[in-house]
């Protein structure tokens, strides 16, 4: 993974010093609340319902074992001994003290981490496919380009006061696992007829109050032009994006207002000044970025022999076999696999881990996966390079520490924002909803029969829990001071991205497990053979679900 050189260290250390000085001035009363706000949020610091919240960046989801141990240490020293992994592959501490945040940032800088631009109206942490570099269906590894984008966007002088936040995602594989169609900018690595690498560029996607699927602004952008083209898009947005209404300030509103063709013309007109200038990426710069993402020292393994042994182990243990089916996926190198550690056991807030668990995962990464861990936007952690012959040991360790729930991609592997228990924006709680659903669907065999079914929960329309793109989406709403939940069906964040459609009137918290169960019953009744939930919804539409769910209510 990427390692800092002196330049990176200096920039991050200077940012820590700058924020320390800004925090002191704020505490002394020299900076007002409103003047301090963008300074602190661009360093990841929110003032929350119960306490400040610090969001730490994990660039494109890559973590080293050393970094994870440091996060465990920080959560113990400055917080309550746990942390929360987010849908932007960042990690949040929910109880730090404002005056200690500069010290936390200094501790992070020691292990090449920071909280820069994890919030605020600026370019946020760039996300990527969690299986970059190891996926069998990969065209090219997204991470070197993510790192180039990280550097370009970090402390960018022109784009720190955008109309609204700005999120970029990159996918380098045929299957989109980075939800690029619902980002402000989505980049799909493509190869043209001449064997050259470039990007299909999407713009104006996003969730939140007005969910939109992104539009294609450029079918093939040669790779050397990546940063100048991004700069042209941002410069147009910075000047023309609405600033009078924060709910209409995202780039998706601008793109929709102008139409993609006019927006493209404006970007191209701006790009003329930047294209082929000194900010154009060179072969050397790309090669330098790639040099940090070379293959680790893979062993040459006999895949057939390893598989035979694994089959034998699986046959002897049903629980291990279930876990292999759901939490382990193929790897491009013979004899290797990628393992997803589930952070969604029933009864724990999705994405939450304790300090002890973080240290256990770091140990597992050291022992079995080249000391690296990845965070995915579904709020799970991944050991990307595990030998088939190590899977039994990995499963046993995962089980000991509570990450072996064999539910990846199942209804209980739900995406969930912190909701009203923590977040001051939320209209409703989301964690208790998640738990009540997990408790209702506790039969693994049943879940296995249902197959892949993504359920996403957001506590408000800001959509941090990506409810619009869940196969089942649940949105917390406020009705006359009481918490209610609206259900949507048919969303998707992958290649066939779609926004869910609202089922009908909302439900109380107590009704939700029954409602979800009825929805699943309609699916089971109508599905053909091995059909997945999303395909059944697309085939039969919402009416059969409405009939079942609302008939029973009367």
């Amino acid at each position, binding site marked *: 993974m990427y390692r800092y050189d002196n330049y990176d260290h200096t920039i991050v250390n200077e940012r820590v010093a700058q924020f320390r000085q800004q925090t002191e001035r704020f505490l002394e009363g020299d900076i007002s609340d409103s003047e301090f706000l963008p300074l602190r949020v661009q360093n990841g610091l929110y003032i929350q319902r119960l306490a400040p919240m610090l969001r730490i960046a994990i660039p494109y989801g890559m973590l080293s074992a050393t970094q994870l141990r440091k996060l465990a240490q920080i959560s113990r020293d400055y917080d309550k001994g746990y942390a929360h992994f987010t849908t932007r592959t960042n990690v949040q501490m929910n109880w730090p003290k404002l005056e200690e945040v500069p010290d936390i940032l200094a501790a992070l800088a020691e292990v090449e981490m920071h909280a820069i631009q994890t919030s605020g109206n600026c370019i946020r942490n760039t996300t990527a496919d969690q299986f970059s570099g190891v996926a069998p269906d990969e065209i090219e590894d997204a991470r070197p380009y993510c790192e180039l984008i990280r*550097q370009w966007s970090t402390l960018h*002088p*022109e784009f720190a006061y955008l109309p609204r936040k700005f999120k970029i995602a990159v996918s380098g594989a045929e299957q989109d696992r980075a939800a690029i169609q619902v980002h402000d900018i989505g980049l799909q690595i493509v190869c043209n007829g001449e064997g050259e690498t470039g990007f299909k560029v999407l713009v104006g996607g996003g969730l939140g109050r007005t969910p939109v699927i992104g539009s294609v602004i450029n079918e093939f952008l040669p790779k050397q032009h990546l*940063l100048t083209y991004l700069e042209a898009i941002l410069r147009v947005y910075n000047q023309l994006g609405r600033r009078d209404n924060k709910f209409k300030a995202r780039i998706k509103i601008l793109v929709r207002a102008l139409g993609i063709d006019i927006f493209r013309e404006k970007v191209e007109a701006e790009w003329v000044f930047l294209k082929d200038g*000194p*900010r154009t990426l060179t072969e050397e710069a790309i090669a330098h970025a790639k040099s940090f993402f070379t293959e680790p020292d893979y062993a040459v393994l006999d895949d057939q022999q390893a598989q035979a042994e694994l089959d034998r182990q699986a046959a002897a243990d049903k629980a291990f076999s279930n876990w292999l089916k759901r939490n382990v996926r193929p790897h491009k190198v013979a004899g290797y696999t990628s393992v997803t550690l589930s952070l969604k056991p029933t009864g724990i807030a999705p994405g939450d881990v304790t300090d002890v668990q973080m240290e256990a995962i770091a140990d597992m990464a050291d022992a079995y996966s080249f000391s690296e861990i990845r965070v995915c936007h579904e709020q799970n952690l991944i050991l990307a390079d595990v030998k088939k012959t190590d899977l039994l040991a990995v499963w046993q360790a995962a089980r000991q520490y509570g990450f072996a729930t064999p539910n990846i991609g199942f209804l209980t592997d739900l995406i969930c924002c912190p909701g009203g228990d923590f977040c001051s924006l939320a209209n409703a709680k989301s964690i208790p909803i998640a738990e009540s659903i997990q408790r209702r669907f506790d039969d693994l065999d049943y879940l296995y029969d249902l197959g892949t079914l993504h359920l996403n929960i957001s506590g408000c329309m800001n959509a941090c829990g990506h409810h619009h793109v869940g196969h089942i989406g649940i949105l917390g709403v406020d009705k006359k001071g009481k918490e209610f939940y609206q259900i949507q069906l048919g969303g998707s964040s992958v290649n066939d991205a779609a926004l869910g459609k609202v089922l009908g009137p909302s439900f109380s918290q107590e009704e939700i497990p029954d409602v979800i169960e009825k929805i699943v019953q309609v699916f089971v009744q109508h599905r053909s053979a091995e059909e997945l939930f999303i395909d059944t919804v697309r085939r039969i539409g919402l009416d059969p679900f409405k009939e079942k769910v609302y008939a029973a209510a009367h």
Partner: protein
Amino acid sequence: MQRLIKDGAIIHDDWKLLDQELDSASKLPPGNIIVPLQLWLQNITELEQRDTAVGIWLDSDQPPRLLEGDIDSLALIAINFPVFSDGRGYSYARELREHYHYSGEIRAIGDVLRDQLFYLQRCGFDAFLLRSDKDAELALASFDDFSDSYQAAVHQTQPLFLRR
């Protein structure tokens, strides 16, 4: 009056900033003046005949292309920040320097605060009229917040990836 920072030092401001309400060129004060864009566009001939210098200030919804043709002849262009978090002016300054190759003074006016100076400078501003309640002396330190940056900008045309 000692709030103007120019090229990293606090200097005496010998320009008079005229506000938006002025709608006629008839009662302009003597000396160097900075006029709103509208006043300039409506009174170009009169203003060009003055013996003293005339600068123009752009509000945050007035991009530099509205000045096209006049840019080279202006000694000073000011860009207003109605609130510091309105970031359009950063792009305007870059366009003035990088598209129009404007070499005169670009002055930040309005809600101009210490914690934005580093970025403003990188975008091509070279003069800063700090908000009246702020201490310009203390603000000078912020120009040294960072010793290097990843991106190319007005005074560093080579991005870090070309210099590593």
